[in-house]
């Protein structure tokens, strides 16, 4: 087993844990705000049904929260053990955001989640609403700090490489916080979570409505989800567009890979809606293009080109050759030559040091790399195009599907025609898992599209891993898969159990299995 297996297994382990973790996160992010909306209506109108809605959906929120909490901690386990060199490189930058995330998650969020469940009889109406609001704020703010750290990996601003400590060190906290990647990424991720939670509430409410169970409760839940979901999915699309623009500005490789843009086309670049990217031939077979779209989204102009993969590779070859010189300058500095010339050489070329480090995959003697080794490293600078190309298109297609569902649900409800349009309830019910598919694909685009770097253009992935054994990685990966799968099975079991019980699980005596009268008509149909 070679070091390549260690790198691949470390990546697989991190990907598996991150993807599993993010099965729980979106519902926490979105459902918390849906609870705020429901409880706000209860406080404003005093109608008991909104209190019941907050309690019932809060119960499902609680199941998801209990299953999801600490599932992210396994990634922190991996930082120090599997990704030691990466951890060392980013430790100075990640320290503050991760500490703040911990404070938000464990103090603000968890404390108020406890008060949410146990405070109904101890707090006043407004006091409890404030608690619900703080639960939502805490969960969303904890996501902010993680996404700031992640955005720095995509676009490492506000930091400098320190030759003595051999790590990146923070030079500007403001640059870290206001990283142009961070803002759109944060809001796009949150809005995606809100969309997922809205689809969940819309779908489950549809389940009740299709069975004519608790229509008064279900139609109100349906209405909240339709409105919140429509606003959220529009935000996802707008912020996705903004994310595309910032990607075009600072992550040209990722943009070219998403678009399978092999050549630098005449601006404005067209969007390849469909096709089969062929990395070996560097072309896309059977491409169906929409004129101007990529140029307009990625550059916000009609005369700025979107750089193609072939041209980017030429640029990368120049940077790798500069990186070899930066590497030589670093070796001189580390060997004790701290003269002005050695420092000036390194300072001039250090921006390309990461590109020089790409050669370490092929030769221990970076400064003497052969043209073949340089060519291999150049090819490595472009991630595998097809998975990113397809993941992006499926994600966007699903986003448009959600827009159709939420807009239809909203309009049908506004026209009070819900009972006559059972198809929208069936679509909503069967679409419940789809936001999770879209979200996971979004993460694949974001993280797989960053390869071959853990920190873009600074630290290659193959140098970031530790000297752990393949056996350790396989066993710990197996342990994580069993652990997360068990959690997911328990989550599904509990969710389905309480969804089937519905608001009857509150024991108020007002719902479905607790009353003997027959079903009533669905409200909002007359």
């Amino acid at each position, binding site marked *: 087993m070679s070091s390549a297996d260690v790198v691949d297994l470390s990546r697989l382990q991190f990907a598996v844990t991150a993807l599993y973790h993010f099965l729980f996160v979106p519902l926490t992010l979105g459902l918390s705000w849906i609870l705020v909306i429901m409880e706000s209506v209860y406080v404003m109108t005093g109608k008991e049904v909104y209190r019941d809605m907050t309690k019932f959906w809060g119960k499902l929120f609680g199941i998801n929260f209990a299953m999801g909490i600490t599932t992210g901690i396994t990634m922190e386990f991996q930082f120090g053990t599997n*990704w030691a*060199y990466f951890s060392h490189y980013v430790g100075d930058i990640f320290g503050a955001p991760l500490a703040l995330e911990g404070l938000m998650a464990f103090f603000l969020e968890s404390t108020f989640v406890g008060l949410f469940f146990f405070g109904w009889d101890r707090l006043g109406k407004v006091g409890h609403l404030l608690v619900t609001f703080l639960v939502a704020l805490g969960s969303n703010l904890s996501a902010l700090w993680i996404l700031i750290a992640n955005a720095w990996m995509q676009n490492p601003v506000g930091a400098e490489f320190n030759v003595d400590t051999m790590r990146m060190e923070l030079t500007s906290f403001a640059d870290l916080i206001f990283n142009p990647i961070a803002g759109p990424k944060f809001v796009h991720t949150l809005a995606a979570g809100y969309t997922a939670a809205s689809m969940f509430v819309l779908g489950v409410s549809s389940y009740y409505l299709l069975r004519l169970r608790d229509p008064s409760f279900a139609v109100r839940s349906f209405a909240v989800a339709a409105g919140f979901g429509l606003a959220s999915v529009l935000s996802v699309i707008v912020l996705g567009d903004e994310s595309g623009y910032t990607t075009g500005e600072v992550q040209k490789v990722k943009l070219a890979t998403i678009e399978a843009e092999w050549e630098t086309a005449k601006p404005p670049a067209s969007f390849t809606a469909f096709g089969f990217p062929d990395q070996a031939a560097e072309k896309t077979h059977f491409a169906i293009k929409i004129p101007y779209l990529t140029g307009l989204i990625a550059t916000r102009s009609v005369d700025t080109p979107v750089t193609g993969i072939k041209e980017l590779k030429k640029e990368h070859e120049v940077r790798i050759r500069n990186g070899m010189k930066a590497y030589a300058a670093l070796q001189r500095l580390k060997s004790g030559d701290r003269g002005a010339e050695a420092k000036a050489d390194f300072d001039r070329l250090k921006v390309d040091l990461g590109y020089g480090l790409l050669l*370490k995959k092929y030769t221990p003697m970076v400064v003497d790399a052969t043209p073949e080794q340089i060519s291999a490293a150049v090819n490595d600078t472009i991630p595998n195009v097809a998975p990113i190309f397809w993941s992006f298109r499926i994600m966007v297609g699903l986003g448009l599907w959600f827009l159709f569902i939420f807009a239809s649900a909203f309009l049908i409800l506004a026209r009070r025609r819900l009972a006559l349009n059972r198809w929208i309830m069936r679509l909503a019910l069967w679409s419940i898992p789809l936001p999770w598919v879209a979200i996971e694909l979004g993460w694949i685009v974001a993280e797989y599209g960053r390869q071959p770097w853990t920190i873009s253009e600074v630290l290659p992935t193959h140098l970031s891993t530790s000297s752990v054994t393949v056996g350790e990685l396989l066993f710990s990966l197996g342990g994580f898969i069993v652990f997360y799968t068990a959690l997911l099975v328990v989550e599904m079991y509990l969710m389905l159990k309480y969804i089937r019980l519905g608001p009857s699980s509150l024991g108020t005596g007002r719902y479905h299995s607790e009353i003997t009268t027959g079903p009533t008509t669905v409200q909002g149909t007359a």
Partner: protein
Amino acid sequence: MRRAPELTPFPVAGSRSSTASWWSRLSPLARDIIVILIVKAIVLTLLWYAFFRAPAAPRMKMDPVRVEQRFLAPLPETPHVIR
């Protein structure tokens, strides 16, 4: 009816039953969640103990010399073959 407060700090015959009655007063969902959280904490601790208790970068920091050796000195593993 409210129970009288315990006057002795030592375990008495009724303490087990009071735990049992506290447990039985919880809703089935609360009981399920408490059990799951306890099992989860145990499993996470075991995983950490088995594989992650001796990180190479404790507190996200390593000896710079070790990093230097990794980045600047030849790697011990066989370099990748270029295809």
